[in-house]
């Protein structure tokens, strides 16, 4: 290379430009590991820092459009892996690393480990949806396995104090990060179960690095959660954080505060719904009473007398009708009888012996005028008889009794 440019003289700008092109072209998309020092977030939002190892230093910058997506704020001493491009800042004749991505060293390994464990636990059935139990609606006491001095317990107490003073809390102090944390958390979960210290168990902690949250993904903790007879709410870190206890628990809460909200119904809401429930019962009952009243209203004295008089009217009508029909009927009967009588009296007239007498016949009786003589042999000679004519009568004495012949023979009929 020196041969190439040995007989050439550059301006500062030219040589700087050449260096820039060379560096950027050769060190495009590279990854560098190192420890952060002199971390300086600028007011513009860009991050300036230095990457070191024991022998060398590398200036680095991460501009705002890239760094706002990084889930942590680096600090001096963090061991990180950055990827990006080496660039030259001409005005100062310095080169630096323009970072595209930054991650804490080991984080990738941890994530891989967690994924591996997650698969194992899932295969063991620890995360089965059938295992999830509903939380009791009205817990009386809640156990919280967390650090007694952390943000988590403070948030939980604050929420429960505000929402529902009828719920008591037992804090089961535990280490929530570092050596021995998983053991104490698991032990506290078992202890809460052994002595039935509450109706719901919250396990959790405030936000932290992925390493800080690791105990909640530990096999010991996950198994204690799975075995817990008390329903478990897992509340680890912030919304974006997660741990395997979240998957094993009956309920995952995004934060400890949210866990406290989940386990407690607002006391004022409970009382309000009690009142509403009573009002509802009262409405239902008064509805029933109104219905019954409208039914019994049919039987008031007034209604009864109305019914009675209506019934009476009916009878009156019926009576009148019958009377009417009886009168007509009777009248008809009388007329018919009269006509019968007329006919009969006509026929009677015809049969009257007096009528016959008028036509020239006479009635012969004995002298007493009572015993009618119908046959000649009823009489002897010199019997006194009476002969009745149509008008007037005579007495007579029989002279001769003639031969016994009836009228038919006599007249030859």
């Amino acid at each position, binding site marked *: 290379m020196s041969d190439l440019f040995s007989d050439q003289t550059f301006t500062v700008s030219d040589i700087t430009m050449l260096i820039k092109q060379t560096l950027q072209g050769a060190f495009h998309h590279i990854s560098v590991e190192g420890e952060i020092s002199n971390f300086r977030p600028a007011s513009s939002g860009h991050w300036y820092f230095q990457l070191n190892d024991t022998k060398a230093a590398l200036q680095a910058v991460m501009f705002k459009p890239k760094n706002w997506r990084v889930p942590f704020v680096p600090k001096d001493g963090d061991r990180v892996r950055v990827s990006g491009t080496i660039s030259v800042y001409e005005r100062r004749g310095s080169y630096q690393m323009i970072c595209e991505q930054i991650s804490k060293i080991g984080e990738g390994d941890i994530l891989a480990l967690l994924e591996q464990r997650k698969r194992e636990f899932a295969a063991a059935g620890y995360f089965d949806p059938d295992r999830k139990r509903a939380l009791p609606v009205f817990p009386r006491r809640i156990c919280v396995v967390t650090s007694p001095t952390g943000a988590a317990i403070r948030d939980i107490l604050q929420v429960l104090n505000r929402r529902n003073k009828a719920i*008591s*809390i037992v804090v089961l*102090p535990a280490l929530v990060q570092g050596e021995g944390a998983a*053991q104490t958390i698991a032990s506290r979960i078992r*202890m809460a179960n052994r002595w039935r210290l509450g109706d719901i168990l919250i396990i959790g902690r405030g936000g932290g690095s992925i390493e800080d949250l690791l105990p909640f993904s530990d096999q010991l903790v996950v198994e204690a959660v799975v075995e817990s007879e008390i329903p478990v709410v897992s509340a680890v870190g912030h919304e974006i954080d997660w741990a395997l206890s979240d998957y094993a628990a009956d309920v995952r809460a995004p934060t400890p505060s949210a866990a406290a909200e989940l386990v407690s119904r607002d006391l004022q809401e409970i009382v309000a719904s009690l009142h509403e429930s009573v009002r509802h019962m009262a409405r239902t009952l008064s509805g029933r009473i109104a219905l019954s009243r409208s039914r019994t209203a049919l039987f008031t004295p007034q209604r009864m007398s109305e019914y009675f008089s209506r019934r009476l009217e009916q009878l009156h009508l019926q009576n009148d009708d019958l009377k009417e029909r009886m009168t007509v009927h009777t009248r008809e009967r009388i007329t018919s009888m009269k006509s019968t009588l007329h006919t009969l009296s006509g026929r009677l007239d015809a049969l009257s012996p007096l009528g016959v007498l008028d036509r020239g016949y006479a009635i012969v009786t004995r002298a007493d005028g009572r015993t009618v003589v119908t046959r000649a042999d009823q009489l002897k000679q010199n019997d006194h008889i009476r002969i009745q004519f149509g008008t007037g009568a005579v007495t007579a004495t029989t002279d001769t009794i003639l031969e016994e012949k009836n009228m038919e023979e006599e007249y030859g009929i």
Partner: protein
Amino acid sequence: MGFEQDITRMEEITNQLQDQATSLDESIKLFEEGVKLARKVEKGLEKIEQKVEILLNSAEDSEEEPELAPFTDES
């Protein structure tokens, strides 16, 4: 009866009140029971004070009974 049972009983009563098969006499008795329950629950709730305690035993899975003391937030 516990709080949860009381609430469940109140729900039952409400259902029975809505059931036309329940006689009016019975409805009135049920209503009285419901109102009494509601009062009891509300009074019960007023009386309960939040107790915050901390477990003192530190021995893991110890056989001794848990020892609780009032917890005060140190921060």
